[in-house]
């Protein structure tokens, strides 16, 4: 497609979206609307964290240890400077949550993009080519699934820490986590895509494409892939939520983000020790944000699944 032909089509695309079932169902579903609003608000807050947050939690010069464990504003003894209170190091909790959500979302999306790249490619190849390629890739997927994400993370993390040292690990922790969660979960995509490809491959438009003399690569990516997008979208929402949870779990166990670059998970962990001493907010507020984020993504995913699966059309 050249830019000329796409730009001439642009208004009709917008018009198509306006009259689409997707928008129609969105307008009629208040849960989806609320979830979408919350999700967008959280994502925007995370993206704009450097401008929104009162202080930079990564900047040690701004931290005053004297202000540690201050409660949120509605409790006596709070400091109006710190809306949601501070953690044990005296970092502003609101700021750390915004930055933490940012890290969690980056890892969530990054891991899912990696999963999707691997899973969709392998799924397409396995489904379209079949035979030995299929058997090999799917057995790989089975083997991969038989290791839990946590185990992979522990092994990879230990190997990297042992060979490069903890400092390097902390520096590249985001990429390492994306890699670990991405590698551990690609079979989910591969299986879903493969199943759809098997269904699509037997349709006549694929024969027609072969008759027109298109190459296998082109048929796979341009003809079959767009027809398998609905399940890919649906599973993506679930996978993003899963990846965020996996990251939080890893960080909680001390295998994820270091405390100097906290994600929501490592925030929960860093406050966990103070839960008994009365400073509950250090753990519970980031925990609440994590729950809301994951819940909202999952509810959006549910809505998307209902919209995209014509068999579930209601009424």
């Amino acid at each position: 497609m050249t830019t000329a032909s796409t730009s001439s089509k642009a208004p009709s695309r917008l018009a198509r979206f306006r009259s689409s079932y997707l928008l129609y169902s969105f307008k009629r579903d208040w849960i989806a609307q609320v979830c979408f609003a919350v999700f967008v608000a959280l994502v925007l807050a995370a993206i704009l964290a450097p401008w929104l947050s009162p202080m930079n939690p990564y900047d040690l010069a701004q931290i005053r240890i004297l202000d540690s464990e201050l409660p949120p504003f509605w409790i006596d003894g709070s400091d109006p400077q710190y809306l949601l209170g501070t953690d044990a190091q005296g970092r502003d909790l609101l700021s750390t949550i915004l930055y933490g959500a940012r890290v969690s979302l980056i890892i969530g999306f990054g891991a899912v993009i990696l999963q999707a790249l691997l899973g969709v490619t392998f799924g397409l190849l396995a489904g379209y080519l079949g035979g030995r390629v299929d058997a090999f890739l799917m057995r790989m997927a089975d083997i991969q699934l038989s290791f839990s994400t946590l185990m992979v993370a522990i092994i990879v993390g230990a190997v990297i820490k042992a060979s490069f040292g903890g400092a390097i690990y902390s520096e590249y922790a985001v990429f390492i986590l994306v890699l670990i969660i991405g590698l551990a979960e690609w079979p989910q995509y591969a299986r879903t895509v493969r199943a759809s490809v098997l269904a699509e491959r037997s349709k006549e438009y694929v024969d027609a494409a072969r008759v027109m003399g298109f190459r296998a690569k082109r048929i796979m990516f341009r003809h079959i892939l767009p027809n398998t997008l609905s399940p890919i979208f649906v599973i993506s929402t679930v996978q993003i939520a899963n990846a965020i949870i996996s990251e939080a779990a890893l960080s909680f166990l001390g295998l994820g983000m270091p405390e100097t670059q906290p994600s929501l998970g490592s925030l929960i962990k860093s406050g966990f020790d103070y839960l008994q001493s009365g400073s509950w907010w250090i753990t519970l507020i980031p925990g609440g944000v994590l729950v809301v984020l994951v819940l909202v993504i999952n509810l959006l995913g549910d809505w998307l699944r209902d919209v995209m699966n014509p068999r579930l059309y209601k009424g």
Partner: protein
Amino acid sequence: MALLEVSNLDVRFALRQGEVKALRDVSFTLDRGERLGIVGESGAGKSVAAFTILNLIAKPGYIADGSIRFDGRELTTMKPRQLQQIRGNKISMIFQDPMMTLNPVLTIGEQMIECLKAHRRIRSRDAREIALNKLRQVYIPSPERRLDQYPHELSGGMRQRIIIAIALLLDPDVIVADEPTTALDVTIQAEIMELLLELCEKHNVALILITHDLGVVSQVTQRTLVMYAGRVIEQGPTREIINDAQHPYTQGLINALPQMATPGQRLNQIPGSMPSLANTPPGCAFHPRCSFSDDANGERRRDCREVIPTFVRSGNCDVACHMVRELVESRPSESDASDDNSHKHREAL
């Protein structure tokens, strides 16, 4: 030299239950601009024949033997790259169901332009112009709008027109049409067939029409191939086959047409059904259903049961039947069908 020469083609499917012979010893030729009909019941191997011409038999199927020569080039041993240049470009295909043949997520224009760009070095704007031109040729109203529409926004007849336009897009030498009208309703069927015929004549495109509609075959094609259980059992000029069928199976097919029945009586039919290709009967595959192959004692003739019939020339047709061979050999100069019967055929079709 013929444009397309298929000789002694054997196609098999290696299934778990054993090997299924889908095509056996199939030979035919097609000249430039000629229109050939392939008829037969479901499962006779018509569609397999069509796919084989493009060397597109999907696994577990494979070409076990024989050759397909297109324009002097052998397709069975050709490298995939070169084959891709022939598919769509020199030989294109029209499928049965227009609902299924177009990719549901790409617009008509995208699909047509993509096809052009796959075979020619061409700018998108020029490709769009060619696509528009072809849409006009198949009489699609407001073609500019259709280019930006998706397949689901169009009716069945319209889609089949678009598929014909796509088939003609690269000015091919041969179009293989695999039951192009079966999925359409009767009024549209006639329109589409007429359109196809008109375009083939205008552009001198050879057509292989695969169908089980003998009426369509008689209107459109010049030569006809009758298939049964993976074999060609009769071939010759369409007019002769329709008016003066030699093979008992072809006769049965023609007698089974609703037009051939006596009003108020049951429709004629060939008893039984076609054998599975996995275990075709020995000898002539049609002998268990054949109503002529009994000998004087009321038993199936031995040669029909045991010997695979070879082709024998009768008139301008080639027929694979032991009884026809006997008839021809005993009365070489005479055509044996009664005049009365052939008149009836002509009226019916």
